[in-house]
């Protein structure tokens, strides 16, 4: 009996091992990489955090949000504005950006959580458009369509500058690993199991005694928090924040990343993010029809691996055990 007590499904452990292996490999190989692939790896690490944060809602709770760029973008704008106009350092920017992104998610959550299915999709889309509108129209704050350029890389006071690609890559990789670990614990926690339960049957969860609204709301806010975290990294990485960062396309792309890798698996979402970043930036070198290829990949995944690439590999054999 005791052997079975501490027993999360063994597939999770394998994913954790694979994830650590991938992170370590990336860390070890990084110094040997030329600047541009390193830049893309950095971008992939950051976008992976965004995709994973969405997966908490999409894959674990079953809430397909189409407005996730909002929290990402609000955090990125906060960093951009504070870092360029107030010369604020990393700590201040981070705290302010996370507070604002989380507060926005807390507000939007109140409006969105009562809706389900397509209505949830529509309402998150609409709220995302509100934030895009703000970014575009509140010119005195956001510089509107011009965006905010020249966001300086943060100084850590450690003697090496994050302005160089390699140190910033390690910075982003470490931050992404931390976020991944935190989200990993979350989805495996009692709370995380509750999210999966809601995804499967809300009425049963209510009957068992769960305040389903509260559970979903907390997931929504936490997801916004991590999307904000990705936004902070993005502002520093790109040095530029504009309305395109909060537009619908960004939300849709994030949704596709999470869906591509396998909703309900954080590692899958990260894999989806890495795949799309590299697909976008490498395939496009070889052919102008790269959008067609990306579209074909999406359709292929939907047809043959609706649970995503990782989901297809981890599927339980029928009648297992």
């Amino acid at each position, binding site marked *: 009996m005791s052997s079975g007590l501490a027993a999360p499904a063994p597939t999770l452990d394998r994913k954790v091992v694979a994830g650590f292996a991938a992170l370590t490999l990336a860390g070890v190989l990084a110094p040997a990489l030329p600047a541009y692939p390193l830049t893309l790896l950095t971008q992939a690490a950051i976008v992976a955090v965004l995709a994973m944060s969405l997966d908490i809602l999409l894959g674990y709770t079953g809430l397909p949000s189409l407005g996730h760029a909002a929290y990402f973008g609000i955090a990125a704008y906060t960093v951009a504005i504070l870092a360029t106009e107030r010369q604020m350092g990393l700590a201040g920017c981070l705290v302010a950006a996370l507070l604002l992104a989380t507060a926005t998610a807390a507000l939007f959550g109140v409006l969105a959580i009562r809706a389900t299915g397509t209505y949830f999709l529509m309402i998150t889309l609409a709220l995302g458009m509100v934030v895009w509108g703000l970014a575009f129209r509140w010119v005195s704050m956001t510089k509107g369509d*011009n965006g905010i350029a020249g966001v300086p890389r943060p100084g850590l006071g450690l003697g090496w500058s994050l302005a160089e690609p390699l140190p910033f890559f390690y910075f982003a990789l470490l931050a992404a690993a931390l976020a991944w670990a935190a989200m990993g614990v979350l989805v495996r926690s009692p709370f995380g199991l509750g999210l999966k339960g809601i995804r499967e049957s809300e009425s049963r969860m209510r009957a068992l005694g769960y305040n389903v609204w509260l559970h979903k709301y907390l997931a929504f806010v936490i997801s916004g928090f991590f999307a904000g975290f990705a936004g902070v990294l993005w502002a520093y990485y790109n040095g530029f924040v504009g309305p395109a960062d909060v537009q619908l396309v960004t939300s849709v792309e994030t949704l596709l990343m999470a869906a591509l890798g396998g909703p309900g698996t954080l590692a899958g979402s990260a894999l989806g993010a890495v795949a799309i970043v590299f697909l976008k930036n490498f395939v496009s070198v070889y052919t102008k029809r790269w959008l067609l290829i990306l579209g074909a990949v999406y359709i292929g995944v939907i047809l043959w691996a609706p649970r995503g690439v990782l989901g297809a590999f981890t599927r339980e054999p029928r009648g297992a055990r």
Partner: protein
Amino acid sequence: MKMKVILVRTLAAGLNVALATTLAVPPTAHAQGGPIKIGLLAPLTGAASALGKDMLNGTELYLDGIGFQAAGRKVELIVEDTEGNTATALTKARKLVEQDKVHVLTGGLLASTGYALHPLAEAQRIPTTYPVMSSDDLTQRKPAKWVVRTGWNSSQSMHVFGEWVAKTLKYKRIVTIGLDYAFGWESVGGFQRTFEDNGGQVIQKIWTPLNTNDFAPFVTQIKREADAVFAVFFGRAALQFVKQYETAGLKGRVPLLGNGTTTDESVLPQMGDEALGIMTALHYSAALDNPANQKFAKAFEAKAGKIPSYYAETCYTNARWIVEAVKAIGGRVEDREALLAALRRVELRDFPRGPVSIDRWGNPVQNIYVRRVDKVGGKLQNSVIATFPAVSQFWKYDPDEYLKQPLYTRDHPPCPHC
């Protein structure tokens, strides 16, 4: 452990691709004698892909003409798709600079891309030219040492036009309608300033959101006592607005004026008689009858199967501009400071758009043409009806005084007569 194997394999495959593409760059890239590399950023997919096509065709047309050779070295053009997205443009710019090791970075469409590329050009110390991006402040309040604009800025031609409309057409009251973002604000702002400085009054300013599909609600708001309407649109919005202006019965009753993009050759062939008579101003028209433009327009039509837009001309001119600078320093493009200085010294009289020189903020001083849409040989064209030579981005104003004023925005200049 199956998952681990798969993940590792996937990652390894990704890295393989990464290494393969970087190693494909010949190790002699730095050494003199390798090709001179020009990196072009253009929106080849997405909503603005037609403009991107013109940009690419214009650039290629010039480089074709010189056999991709300059100062005894081969010229290599590396094109990257920006999808009309600034974040993508930044990533691709890094690729061009860091991986392809281009000697000159050029292109870009959106104003935001211009502002975002500024710090990159400065940090990487990479000579950069902007043939299209027209935001005023890129060469006014926020210039960049490493950036030379080879195109134009939004308010440059509008300063000329506002004054011309007030003095020549003698209109007194004008309603403006334009896209509700920086490009619209700067174009309207430039027009309003000189129009009102010369006795005119803007009596109403209407702003339309970028994604407007139906302009009827905006057109019906236009005050009918106006002497003329001044419009700022481009692309699909220009086509729709001009059409709906006619549908609303305003054409022929209230003359329509516009900025250059409203009747640019990128949209003009798709317009009908509703466009006849619209007067605009720009630093180019495909109908310019100087020999350089005749030759360019004919060659462009042969290559692209359509008349050249300003996007095509500016990228053609931009390519020549870069090549002239390369020639001026004997092809030693590895000397970045020298190349930058040469780019800023280029001064030629025979571009298709006419003579051009560069001011010390990095913006062209060039002819501005007042144009009217006419039908010649069954086709619409922007006939030049007035030429203003050597127009600076500051028009007749003192640059230092000018720069103390804020940038033109939605609310600046204010509208005292509205």
